[in-house]
């Protein structure tokens, strides 16, 4: 067991962490908004944790709080990301479809360029030697695991109720939603803020986990990777991001013996899934289950 965790612990925690980042993109998507801003908030959260964890300025905090400084980092990162998502979201969400995607990519780039040029973020080198919360990589499952469980529960409850319905209504037909008394600006912003806050908190948890934090953490590539989790897993289900992350984050490891050609297979999986499973894996599973049920009904029966 110890050896298994030694070999695969990091991978398992990474899957959970990536699933959380996929979730952060799922919220705006569930309200019909294609936002790729998550890596920007993820980077911000990570820098907040890295700076509080290493800068001279915060030494008294660390001495005073001991390990309790970590939850404080998560909270600060969450609040900062929520505020920033509000400031970015309100103007950006006036844009639709691909234009919103472009604006949010621009936001990710701005965060990256700023962090490359500030001295407090360590410039191009970044921040390293970030203090650890756990002794092993595997230990981080005790923060990412509960966060994922809480996020899934939160999402499930959200989707059952009034706010989740408002999100879906806007996704289906924004104009009709508005004519039914739903304020689209408000709910699009809410979805965007929930996603941004989650990405910020995950960033703050990831800075110690990865030990170093630099401008490579929040890039356009990451935007696309998170989007791929949700698209492959399924955009219509809260389980989509988890399934997509599990598949895409482990695939390179499973295919490691193939060396460089593994990237080809990785790409092929993306293409095949998007052609043959347009609703993602969750959508395909739901269809299979639906088909299974129908077989039990005599011909001409109502289902």
């Amino acid at each position: 067991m110890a050896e298994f965790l030694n070999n695969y612990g990091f991978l398992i925690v990474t899957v959970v962490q990536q699933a959380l980042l996929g979730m952060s993109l799922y919220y705006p998507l569930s309200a019909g908004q294609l936002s790729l801003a998550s890596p920007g908030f993820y980077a911000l959260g990570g820098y907040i944790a890295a700076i509080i964890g290493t800068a001279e300025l915060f030494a008294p905090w660390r001495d005073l709080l001991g390990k309790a400084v970590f939850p404080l980092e998560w909270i600060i990162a969450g609040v900062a990301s929520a505020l920033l998502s509000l400031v970015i979201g309100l103007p950006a969400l006036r844009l639709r479809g691909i234009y919103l995607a472009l604006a949010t990519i621009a936001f990710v780039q701005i965060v990256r360029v700023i962090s490359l040029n500030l001295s407090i973020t360590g410039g191009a080198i970044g921040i390293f030697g970030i203090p650890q919360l756990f002794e092993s990589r595997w230990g981080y499952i005790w923060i990412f695991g509960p966060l994922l469980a809480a996020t899934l529960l939160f999402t499930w409850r959200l989707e059952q109720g009034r706010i989740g319905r408002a999100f879906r209504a806007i996704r289906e037909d924004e104009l009709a939603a508005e004519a039914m008394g739903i304020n689209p600006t408000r709910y699009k912003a809410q979805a965007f803020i929930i996603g941004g806050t989650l990405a910020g908190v995950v960033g703050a948890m990831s800075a110690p986990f990865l030990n170093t934090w630099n401008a490579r953490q929040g890039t356009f590539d990451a935007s696309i990777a998170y989007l791929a989790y949700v698209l492959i897993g399924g955009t219509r289900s809260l389980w989509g991001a988890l399934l997509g992350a599990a598949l895409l984050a482990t695939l390179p490891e499973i295919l490691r013996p193939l060396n460089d050609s593994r990237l080809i297979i990785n790409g092929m999986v993306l293409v095949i899934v998007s052609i043959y499973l347009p609703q993602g894996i969750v959508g395909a599973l739901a269809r299979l289950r639906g088909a299974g049920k129908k077989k039990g009904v005599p011909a001409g029966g109502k289902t």
Partner: protein
Amino acid sequence: MTGLLDVKGVSRCFGGLKAVNDVSFRVEKGEIFGLIGPNGAGKTTLFNLISGLTPVSGGILSYDGVPLNSLPPHKVARLGIGRTFQNIRLFKGLSALENVKIARHSRTRAGLWGSVFGFPASHREEQEVKQRAGEILALVGLDNRADELASSFSYGDQRRLEIARALALEPRLLLLDEPAAGMNSAEKHGLTQFIREIRDRFNLTILLIEHHVPLVMGLCDRIAVLNFGELIALGPPAEVQKDPSVIEAYLGGD
């Protein structure tokens, strides 16, 4: 009877085109008011002006004394103006029940945390939403298909579902944009009955656009006729039918 909707000198231009030009009329409480006119007369534009989807270029729109001119559509809906769309805008990927539940939005108040933690008030509210949506579906006769996707419904059923959705908003003024379009004659007859029934049951005032002349004549208390954005006739069906300018607009003059 007192006025519920007051349209005073309302205009809307699209570039050089005056889609609605200085139109005035008043819809009384409890009335079924028909809006007719040839294609492109500006009927749907007028609906969009009332429901806030299109801003007015001039004039005053007021509902029960409240000016509507600068209100966004969701606030207009909240005031109690429900509508359907000419080209049916259901939430097609969602079930019939969900479509109706969504329209309960402005009549409920659960916030993010209330929903997520299931506070007693939110929980109770959710039960009410479910019950109420079920009742309304039953009213339009679609309760046995509550879980089917809106997109799987026939055209006529989609129209009925859209009316159900608008009713769930608890409107006092209901705008119906060509409710009989695509229905067969039996369905059209049923629709006339149904519109009267909901008017009585929910104390509604109904403003409707319709092309099918017998339906309008049999159903409406008063009719306004639009042609090229202008109001050319207004009155009870029997009068409007004989009005020379209406005959000219429909059949062509000279």
